[in-house]
């Protein structure tokens, strides 16, 4: 047992310390010796027991010995059980009395500060951990409807800074990516003119009874022209499709009156479906 450094800081007399050390050393040696003797005795007892059990009539003697010692064994077992329960109760009381004080004495903050969280995290294999997770199963267990139902949309929208959002949007890029021609092609101009106030504006600015009447007169006169042409073609037994409908530069093709008549005929049902008189 080292004793040099301890002496320098101890107020106990050196003689007492020496005696104590001597007593402890002797006790230690005695204990070691006793343990060795005990172990040797135990081994000898076991060997003797085996030898005795091998002798003739050992079984009968064993049973007799067992019967004779049974009350002692039972009494010892009861005593051991009582001692164990008493020890447990005392340990419990001891812990209840000591642990709160111990817990209060421990500085949790200091303890936590001493833990190297980074080192712990570094030791975790994130990839392995993630690979072990079955994402599909996880997602399947989520009730999206319920999740969405719990979201307060109004509150969410209130938290959005629309101005900041708008400032981050590159409107030029957005506009540049829009195919205006394609959109314009999809607009039903007829419906827009007929069903919106734009139509009223157009009507007030450009239309009048005279212009409407003129449009109708021109259209009806042209209808009569077409009928006259058909009749003349029939009288002259002119082959259908012989006559051009107009000058080539204006019609864009060598079309014929026939095709014009055909296009008129195609429009007839549309006319009828209008269901409005002229």
């Amino acid at each position: 047992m080292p004793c040099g450094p301890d002496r320098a800081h101890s107020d106990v007399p050196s003689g007492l310390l020496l005696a104590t050390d001597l007593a402890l050393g002797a006790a230690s040696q005695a204990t070691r010796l006793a343990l060795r003797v005990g172990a040797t005795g135990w081994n000898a007892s076991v060997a003797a027991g085996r030898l005795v059990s091998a002798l003739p009539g050992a079984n009968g003697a064993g049973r007799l010995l067992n019967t004779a010692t049974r009350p002692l064994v039972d009494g010892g077992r009861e005593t051991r059980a009582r001692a164990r329960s008493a020890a447990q109760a005392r340990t419990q009381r001891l812990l209840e009395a000591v642990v709160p004080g111990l817990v209060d004495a421990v500085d949790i903050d200091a303890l936590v500060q001493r833990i190297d969280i980074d080192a712990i995290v570094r030791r975790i294999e994130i990839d392995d951990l993630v690979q072990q997770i079955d994402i599909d199963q996880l997602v399947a267990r989520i009730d999206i409807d319920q999740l969405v139902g719990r979201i307060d949309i109004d509150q969410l929208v209130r938290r959005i800074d629309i101005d900041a959002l708008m400032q981050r949007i590159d409107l030029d890029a957005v506009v540049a990516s829009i195919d205006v021609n394609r959109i314009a092609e999809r607009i039903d101009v007829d419906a827009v003119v007929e069903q919106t106030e734009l139509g009223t504006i157009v009507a007030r600015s450009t239309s009048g009874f005279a212009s409407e009447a003129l449009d109708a007169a021109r259209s009806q006169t042209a209808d009569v022209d077409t009928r006259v042409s058909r009749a003349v073609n029939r009288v002259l037994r002119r082959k259908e499709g012989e006559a051009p409908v107009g000058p080539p530069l204006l019609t864009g093709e060598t079309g014929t009156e026939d095709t014009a008549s055909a296009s008129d005929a195609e429009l007839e049902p549309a006319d009828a479906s209008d269901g409005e008189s002229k």
Partner: protein
Amino acid sequence: MTNGDAHRAIARQGHYAGALSRLLAYGADLLILTVVYAAGLALMEFAINAATPWNVDLKTAHGLVLIGELLWAAFYFGNSWVIFARSPGMTLLGLRIVQADGSPLDRHHGIIRLIAFPLGFLTLGLGFLGIIFGRTHQAIYDRIARTAVVYDWDAEAAKLRGLAARGAHRREAQVQAPTER
């Protein structure tokens, strides 16, 4: 005018104009130039009688009036054809004069047409028959001047006007309906 009419009218633009359209256009032109000429003559007669010592009665000068009217008609048609490629009557009916191939009428062809125009009457009307029976609806003066008359009014705008008018009427009816109830 229904949608069907409007679409037909749009499809017809650039096609040879038929007989009735051209006849009505000519009738309108004749009416306009006659009224204007008569008004002009009356004004001139009044001015001469009022401002000079002479007393003029143009009703008795038939030859002079006829020559004047022919000259006025030549001026009327010549100017309108060469400058606008259409006479006022043609404008009313939505017609336009083009060259036979469809290119715009130039001064040269316009003047030839004007010079050849009387042949329609001088042939006792036979020169006009081509408008009815010809495949390209050309009168004799059209063939000489290599011109044609086509439909050319703003049918697209007419269609939009029609749609707008119909929409406006419908909305007015919808507004009035609850108040009547």
